[in-house]
C-alpha cells in the first residue's frame, strides 16, 4: 500500500467535517488498509467502544434458550423457573423422538390387535417413569452433589424436573391417544395411572433406592398388574375401570403425603 490517508484528513473524516468525495476515498481505502484502520481506532470514542463490546459479550455469553424455555416465558413463567423446567436433563430432542416412536408403536399395536387399547394403555404410564430415571438422582445427574448444597437444589428441583417430565409425557401420550381407534374414555384412562406411578416412584426414590431401581420396580409392578388383570379376570381393562381409577387417585394422594413426609430424607440423605 503506497498511499495512506494523512492525519488531517483522518481527523476531518472522524469529525464529519470532510468533503463527501474525500470521504468516499477514505472509506474505500480503509476497507483494504490495516494501517489506516489503526489510525482511525486510535481516535475512537472509548466509552462507546466499550459499551458496544459489553453488548457483544453479553450476546455471546448469554445462556442459550431452548424453544420450550421461550414458550414458558411467553406464557408468563418467571425466567428462572422456566429455565429449570426447560433444562431438565433428558428433555432433549432425542428423548422426545424416542418416546414419540414408542407411543406410535403402541398405537399401531393397538390397532393391529383389533382396536384393543391395552398395549397403549399399559405403555403410556411408563413414559414418565423412563423420563424420571434420567432427570435427577445419582447416576443421571452429574451435578447432584453441588445441587443438593443449594437452597432449591434438593426437593424443589426434584419436583420441578418431575413436573417437566410428566407434562411432556402427558402431552405426547395425549397426542398419540387421539390416534387410537374407537377412542372413548380409554383415550384418557392412562392419565391417572401415569400420575400415580410417577408419584409412587418419587416417593420410592426418597429411600435408599436409586431412581433407576425405583422406576424399574414400579414399572414392572404396573405391567404385572395389567397383565394379571387382563388374563386372569374376565374383565379386560379391569386395571383401567372406574374402580381402578379411584384406587389410583387414592394411591397418588397417599404417595404424595409420603413424599412430603420424606422431604428431609431427600434434602439431606443418609446414604449417597
Amino acid at each position, binding site marked *: 500500500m503506497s498511499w495512506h490517508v494523512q492525519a488531517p484528513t483522518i481527523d476531518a473524516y472522524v469529525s464529519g467535517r470532510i468533503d463527501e468525495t474525500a470521504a468516499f476515498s477514505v472509506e474505500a481505502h480503509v476497507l483494504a488498509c490495516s494501517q489506516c484502520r489503526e489510525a482511525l481506532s486510535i481516535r475512537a470514542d472509548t466509552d462507546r467502544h466499550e459499551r458496544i463490546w459489553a453488548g457483544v459479550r*453479553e450476546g*455471546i*455469553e*448469554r*445462556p*442459550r434458550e431452548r424453544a420450550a424455555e421461550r414458550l414458558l416465558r411467553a406464557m408468563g413463567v*418467571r*425466567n*428462572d423457573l422456566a*429455565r*429449570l423446567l426447560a*433444562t431438565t*436433563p433428558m428433555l432433549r430432542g432425542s428423548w422426545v423422538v424416542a418416546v414419540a416412536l414408542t407411543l406410535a408403536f403402541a398405537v399401531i399395536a393397538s390397532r393391529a390387535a383389533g382396536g384393543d387399547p391395552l398395549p397403549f394403555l399399559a405403555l403410556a404410564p411408563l413414559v414418565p417413569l423412563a423420563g424420571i430415571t434420567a432427570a435427577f438422582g445419582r447416576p443421571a*445427574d*452429574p*451435578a*447432584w*452433589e*453441588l*445441587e*443438593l*448444597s*443449594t*437452597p*432449591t*437444589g434438593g426437593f424443589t*428441583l426434584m419436583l420441578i424436573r418431575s413436573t417437566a417430565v410428566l407434562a411432556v409425557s402427558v402431552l405426547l401420550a395425549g397426542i398419540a391417544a387421539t390416534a387410537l381407534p374407537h377412542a372413548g374414555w380409554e383415550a384418557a384412562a392412562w392419565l391417572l395411572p401415569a400420575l400415580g406411578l410417577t408419584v409412587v416412584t418419587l416417593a420410592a426414590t426418597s429411600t435408599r433406592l436409586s431412581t433407576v431401581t425405583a422406576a424399574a420396580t414400579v414399572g414392572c409392578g404396573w405391567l404385572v398388574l395389567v397383565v394379571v388383570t387382563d388374563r386372569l379376570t374376565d374383565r379386560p381393562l379391569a386395571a383401567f375401570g372406574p374402580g381402578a381409577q379411584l384406587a389410583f387417585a387414592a394411591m397418588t394422594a397417599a404417595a404424595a403425603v409420603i413424599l412430603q413426609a420424606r*422431604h*428431609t430424607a431427600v*434434602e*439431606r*440423605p*443418609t446414604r*449417597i
Partner: protein
Amino acid sequence: MMQTTMDLTGVEKRFGGVHALDGLSLGIGPGVTGLLGPNGAGKTTMMRIAATVLAPDGGTVRLLDRDPTDADDRVEIRRRLGYLPQEPGFYQRFTAFEFVDYVAILKEMSDRRLRHEEVRRVLDLAGLGDVASRQVKALSGGMRRRLAFAQALLRDPELLLLDEPTAGLDPEQRLRFRELVSNLPNRPTVVLSTHVTEDITALCERVIVIAGGVVRFDGTPGTLAATADGRVWIADAADPRATLSWRMGDGRHRHIGDPPADAETAAATIDDAYLLMVGEVRVGQEVAA
C-alpha cells in the same frame, strides 16, 4: 470468644462396617482453615456433612449458628454456603456461563440481569472470563475445577467449603487461587481440604489433621511442623529404622521417625509432621464414600 461458624460434636458416620468419622469434634470460625488427612480418612465425608448434603449417623452439627436437621434452618444455611465438591460434575453441553448461571438460579437469584452480572463476576475472578461461552466438554480439567470454584463464590458465601480446590491446577493458577482466597471480602469462614502443603503454609491460619475418623492435630501450620522437630534426618542410604523414608532429588534419603544418635537432623516441614502423624495411625480399608 470468637463465634464459630461450624461446630461438629461427636460426629459419626459409618459406611458398611467402617467408621469414616468416629466421634469427630471440632469448631471452625472465620479465616482460612486447612484440612489435611489421608484419602478415605473422612475428610470428604466431613466436608459433605458440613455442606449439608450428607446426614451423619450420630453426633450434632451446627452451621452458621443453625441446625441443619431443621428444614427452614437448612435452607438458610444453604443460602450462605459455597461448596466445591471433590468430584464436581457438570452438564457437558452447558457452556461455562450457562453452568454457573444454573447454579445461581438454584441459589435463588431470580433477576436475570443481576444474575448474569454475578456470574460474570465470579467467572472473571476464577480467570475464566475468556472461555465463558465455551462448552464444559471443551474445557480442560484445571479449567473445570476453576469453574466449580467460581460457582462456590456466588453471592459471597459466609461459609466456603473447598474440597481439593487446587487439584489439577498449574503453579501459576494455584498462586492466583491463593491470592483470591486470601483477599475474599468480609472475612468468610473458609475450609480448605487439600493435599498440597504449600496451600496450607501460604493460606491457612490454622490446620486440622484428620486421620482414622478423628482429629489428630489442631493448631497453626508452624506448630504442626514443630511436632516433627528432631524427628527428621538425612542419610546417604535408606535407614530401615525410620518410620518412613524416601529418596530425594539429590540422591540422599530423608527419614522421619526416631533418629539414631549420630543422625544428621533436618528442619521439620509440614509434610514431615503430617506423614509422621498419619503413619502412626492405623487407617481402615479405603472407604467408598
